[in-house]
């Protein structure tokens, strides 16, 4: 990956058999990093994540998604300063990523105005992923971890409602700070990182097999997306492409995960609006999907089904029949539920005009996935970059423009139906049994990146492999950080009591891949 993908401003991304076209662009000078970022911004790129790595040189990575594909900039930092230019002026979502990098790696964002602690909740004295030999990295950031300074809203009758990190229900920990007047929300600020898992350290020094197991366990609802993005990144680094059969099974697995999660979200949305019966109706279907996954693929949440080089599951003729039958049943039952949702006046009254994410705001934060498509952001990695086998039976783009909870509900229904049709076509045209390929070893370190359309949105992955198939650094990033931004933008102006519904309609993960 040493070719320069940008050639006099033109773009040259390396196409790949399965995933989307992608390019890794190594840079040495901060000026070049800023210049490339500006150029990407002007080309309509969306920032998907910024992370760090401390290999032989400390490096900073930033992933951007263009209509044409994924571009990852990698900037080598000077050991003497460990500083990098902040992209927050170009991409508003960059700030929190950069604060995370600062907290974990001790790198210094230049030009970032918001320097509050992000991932560091006062539990470590020096950045845990920093180079232990570099004295610069141990300079902890300024503000004390306790009493996190939320932005205050002042005015007559304004008061704050702190919610969490411990909630009344059994959910993940996260803190919300509402500034309200009466029932109306003026500002919402989220604070996450209570469940930082240290995934980056866990990956370090693992073998590929261990890495694949870990990747599928990062986030239970995105097991397939995370392990697929990990495997694709490894495959790109190794320069191999999985067999046709593997690609088909992987696509089927990804759609199963999407359908199951969308069903869960739809049921939970009904439940949050007070329609408890909806939750049991949707949970029933989701449970059925999980049980089929257990019998056909060996795991309810499809853990360990995808490995670098292929898949660990194969489909027998009877299993294909079983899955096809399930597709038909689900299509029928979900159609009925969709009609119930669409016709339920009380439910639609709660959904419509609630939590509107304006298309321009969605664009500003680069929000993709369900939330983005409900706000007119016509991005879907499966539709835009039709790798194999997607290009043969490409699912239609689900798009809405109202950006409210109702739109996000509609998008989920549309996507379920598209996924079912897509799965059906894949099952009917399943080629020869999938084979896992061996990965060729190479003496020098290699890097690879990938992007997968998970159920929330784009999941990106990046790996750096050492000789002997040892993982040096891995970063997997789900879209939750961007969705938290979207939620913060969509909540003000709504009633406090409507917040749980809005939150559920975005469904960002509190833990994310590693918030």
């Amino acid at each position, binding site marked *: 990956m040493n070719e320069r993908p940008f050639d006099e401003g033109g773009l040259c991304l390396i196409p790949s058999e399965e995933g989307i076209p992608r390019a890794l662009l190594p840079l040495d000078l901060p000026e070049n990093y800023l210049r490339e970022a500006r150029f990407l911004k002007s080309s309509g790129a969306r920032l998907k994540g910024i992370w760090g790595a401390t290999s032989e040189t400390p490096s900073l990575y930033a992933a951007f998604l263009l209509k044409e594909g994924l571009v990852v900039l990698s900037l080598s930092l000077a050991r003497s300063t460990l500083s990098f230019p902040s992209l927050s002026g170009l991409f508003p979502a960059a700030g929190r990523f950069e604060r995370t990098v600062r907290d974990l790696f001790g790198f210094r964002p230049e030009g970032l105005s918001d320097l509050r602690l992000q991932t560091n909740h006062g539990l470590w004295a020096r950045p845990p992923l920093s180079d232990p030999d570099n004295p610069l990295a141990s300079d902890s950031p300024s503000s004390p971890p306790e009493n996190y300074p939320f932005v205050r809203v002042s005015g007559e009758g304004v008061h704050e409602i702190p919610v969490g990190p411990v909630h009344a229900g059994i959910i993940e920990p996260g803190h919300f700070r509402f500034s309200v007047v009466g029932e109306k929300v003026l500002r919402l600020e989220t604070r996450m990182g209570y469940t930082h898992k240290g995934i980056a350290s866990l990956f370090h020094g693992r073998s590929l097999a261990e890495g694949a197991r870990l990747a599928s366990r990062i986030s239970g609802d995105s097991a397939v997306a995370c392990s697929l993005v990990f495997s694709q990144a490894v495959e790109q680094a190794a320069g191999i492409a999985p067999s046709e059969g593997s690609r088909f099974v992987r696509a089927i697995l990804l759609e199963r995960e999407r359908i199951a999660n969308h069903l869960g979200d739809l049921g939970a949305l009904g439940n949050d609006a*007070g329609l408890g*019966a909806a939750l049991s109706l949707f949970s029933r279907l989701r449970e059925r999907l999980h049980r089929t996954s257990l019998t056909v693929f060996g795991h309810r949440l499809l853990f360990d089904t995808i490995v670098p080089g292929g898949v660990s599951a194969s489909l027998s003729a009877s299993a294909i029949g079983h899955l096809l039958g399930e597709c038909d049943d689900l299509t029928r039952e979900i159609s009925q539920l969709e009609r119930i949702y669409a016709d339920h006046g009380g439910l639609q009254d709660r959904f419509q005009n609630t939590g509107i994410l304006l298309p321009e705001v969605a664009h500003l934060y680069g929000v993709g996935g369900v939330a983005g498509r409900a706000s007119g952001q016509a991005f879907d990695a499966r539709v835009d970059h039709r790798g194999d086998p997607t290009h043969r039976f490409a699912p239609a783009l689900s798009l809405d423009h109202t950006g409210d909870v109702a739109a996000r509900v509609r998008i989920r229904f549309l996507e379920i139906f598209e996924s079912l049709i897509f799965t059906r076509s894949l099952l009917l045209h399943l080629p020869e049994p999938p084979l896992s390929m061996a990965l060729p070893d190479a003496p020098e370190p290699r890097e690879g990146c990938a992007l997968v359309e998970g159920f929330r949105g784009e999941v990106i992955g990046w790996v750096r492999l050492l000789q002997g198939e040892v993982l040096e650094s891995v970063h997997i990033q789900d879209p939750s950080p961007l969705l938290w931004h979207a939620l913060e933008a969509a909540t003000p102006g709504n009633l406090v009591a409507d917040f749980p519904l809005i939150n559920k309609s975005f469904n960002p993960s509190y833990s994310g891949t590693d918030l």
Partner: protein
Amino acid sequence: MAITSPSPAMVAVEAVQLLFVLLFAPVLYGWIAIVRAFLSNRTPAGLFQPWRNLLRLFKKETLLPEGHSILFVLVPPAFFSVIAGASLLVPFLSVSPLLAPVADAVTLVGLFSLARMTMALGAMDVGTPFGDMGARREMMVAFLTEPATLMILFTVSLWSGSTSVPSIIRSLSDGHDLFHPSLLIAALAFILVFLGENARLPIDNPTTHLELTMIHEAMLLEYSGPLLALMEWGSMQKLLLYLLIGIDFFAPAGIPEAPTFLSVLAGSGILAGKLFLLGSGIALIESLFAKLRIFRVPEFTALAYLLSTLGFLLHFVLEV
């Protein structure tokens, strides 16, 4: 009406009334949960689950939040006593129990308001945002439903010319036509008021865990152990009492005039049947409707007020 010397039978009926409300309120709660579970394809937890919950809470230690005052501790017993006291005023096993002379419908409304006020004070005592939010919303719902409640009372008391509950029951259960349009409309209004006053869907979701949407539950968030049990038990009794008042006003058939052992027994049987039927109705409403956006509550209560006023006017148009 002068206070007559208390006969042993009347004292016994009053005691049985109190016991019935204390013991049966959690069972009715359990019944509503069973029907709700049945309507949404879930396996119910059983008729006595609320009782098991209460007993579990009574066995727990009491944890008090930081910064509470004595008010916080006094509120649960006060709330519980006011509600239990109200059960002595609502006649349901005999038309005219011992405390009949004070069994005035307006008194009852006052008692419920007192109970609500104590609960709101307890919620605001600790000064957490959720308690304040719950109390604020509860008071909003309350002041919006109260006019409708009073209008319903006036409508049903038009027949008796008095707001005394025994005289309302008597006037409605003897002589007149079985079907009164004014009462039918008032009954519809009463259902709306009932849902609002008892924190049921579509006004409030009694089973929610989303602290930001809560009304009733938000006020109880800081309570634990026996204090929480008293609050929960009191709320269950309040729900039962509202249903009993509804039965008194709109379906009083079967309430014995003279309390004898057999008539009380038969009366309890009929009453339990009515309550299970009403409980199923509540569960059905709760399963079919989504929760209203909180600022739609005024529309809901305005509908209740409109209906009750309509009932009031219909009495003069059609029935006099």
